[in-house]
């Protein structure tokens, strides 16, 4: 299967400043790929290279299996850049119509303008000049504009930046709908960790031009999780649980235990044998109601990656 997006050891300098260093990442079709990083990390430059606005100094960039220098490739890509690029002196419908015509979209699809505007709740503002729109409305219109030619891949640069929380939720819902119901691949640049955690299945983290982490979000969270197991017992007698803890602490992969009401938190220092732990509890007559492994949040992964560099 051809990757929707493949960057291989991409380097880019602007003036004397290195903006990207050996950036390598792959986005699979159907992914909602989160591209994270602090301000000035190189996110927008990466997007500009993907969109063919900048030429990479070295490395390769393939979008939907084609080289980015091909103008026709951009017929398959929809985009919302950091600045929405809408024309203030035109109304919402005229803005969309301009792009419909630029992409040479057939009349049958152009008739769907109303439907598309309705879908994002802008049907009543279609005839108003874009200058009168709120930031959230502008972003929604920009998302509709990105979809006028029914692209395979959507490149979104900070699509919720500067929008109020309810607007952010609406934009997120639109993105999820595009990915899940319309089968679009989404490459989303953001520094909003919560947003990325909510909607993305894969992420890459870039800092100072270098990719720090790249992969499936669930696996990254699992890998970065503190080695801690939480056993829910339903037993509240402290002395009973203490006996269990004494036994557990003798296991070679247990670094320490902590008691909480009805729970034992076990810090691990190696690969744990959950069945052995459960067996210890069973020997002491303590029922096991649940075993949970604590999961790192994206914020923890992000902080760790950025801190490691510093």
């Amino acid at each position: 299967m051809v990757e929707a997006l493949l960057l291989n050891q991409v380097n880019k300098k602007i003036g004397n400043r290195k903006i990207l260093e050996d950036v390598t990442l792959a986005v699979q079709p159907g992914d909602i790929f989160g591209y994270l990083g602090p301000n000035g990390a190189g996110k927008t430059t990466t997007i500009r290279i993907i969109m063919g606005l900048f030429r990479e100094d070295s490395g390769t960039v393939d979008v939907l299996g084609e080289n980015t220098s091909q103008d026709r490739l951009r017929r398959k890509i929809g985009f919302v850049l950091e600045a929405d690029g809408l024309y203030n002196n035109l109304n919402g419908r005229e803005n969309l119509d301009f792009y419909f015509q630029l992409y040479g979209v057939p009349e049958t699809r152009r008739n769907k303008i109303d439907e598309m505007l309705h879908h994002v709740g802008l049907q009543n503002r279609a005839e108003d000049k874009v200058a009168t729109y709120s930031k959230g409305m502008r972003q929604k219109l920009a998302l509709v504009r990105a979809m006028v030619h029914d692209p395979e891949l959507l490149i979104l640069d900070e699509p919720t930046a500067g929008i109020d929380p309810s607007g952010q939720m609406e934009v997120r819902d639109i993105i999820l709908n595009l990915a899940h119901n319309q089968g679009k691949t989404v490459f989303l640049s953001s520094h909003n960790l919560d947003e990325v955690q909510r909607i993305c299945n894969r992420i890459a983290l870039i800092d100072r031009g270098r990719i720090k982490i790249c992969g499936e979000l669930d696996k990254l969270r699992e890998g970065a999780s503190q080695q801690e197991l939480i056993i829910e017992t339903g037993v509240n007698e402290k002395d009973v649980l203490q006996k269990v803890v004494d036994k557990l602490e003798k296991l070679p992969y247990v670094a320490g235990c902590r008691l909480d009401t009805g729970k034992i938190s076990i810090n691990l220092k190696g690969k744990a044998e959950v069945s052995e732990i459960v067996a210890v509890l069973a020997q002491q007559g303590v029922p096991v109601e649940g075993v949970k492994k604590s999961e790192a949040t994206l914020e923890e992964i992000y902080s760790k990656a950025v801190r490691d560099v510093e």
Partner: protein
Amino acid sequence: MMKEILVILKKDLKETLHTRTFLISIALTILVVYYVLINLERTIGAMLKTNTVIEPTGYIQPIIDIAIFSVMLIVAVYYSFMINSYTLLIEKTKHSLESLLCTPLSLKQFWFGKTMSMFIPSTILGFLFTLAAFCATNVFVIYPKVGHWIYPGAVSFVAIFIAVPSIVLFLSALFYLLQLIIANVRLINIIFMFVLIITINVLILGSSNLKSSWSLVFISLGVAAILGLTNLFLFRMLTKERIVLTSKG
């Protein structure tokens, strides 16, 4: 390619023609044409006083030819700058240019489309104002003094349909090209407006001293050719990267 160019042209006109700036420009143009008329009246009046025997068409027609050339050039170049600086300044500062460059338009289509969106309306406006100035000159200046209309010579038709459009086309292209590759758009605007004002004054004040309007047309065609070559040379410097990097606003 023509389809994309027309789309850009239509959008730019829609954006520009509804603005207050455009209305102010119309008023300014009327003032310039009025200034030309006053100068023509003075020049023609002085000539009629000194040449009482010779048939006036012979010496008034070259003046009309030069006036037609001057008005057409000034008005067309002015509107070309006005439309360009208005749309480009906004597109660069609001970054809509970057979005436009992410569409399937090639750099050539983009540049040519933008040039056409300056050239076509400005040439049409130049032609309309020239026609109005010609009629006004005959109605208010020539007819009361000579008793009949004096029509332009063949040189005016060459000027209106070939020389002036060539200059406007290549100048518009050059103006847009420079604005795309240089970060300080306002500076380019000021320099071009300064050059335009000097040209207006040279043409208006110097027109009465020119003996042959054909020479003006040939000079113009030469200038157009130089501008065309300059465009070809500078186009090699035009890249999407340069446009984006000079669009910081």
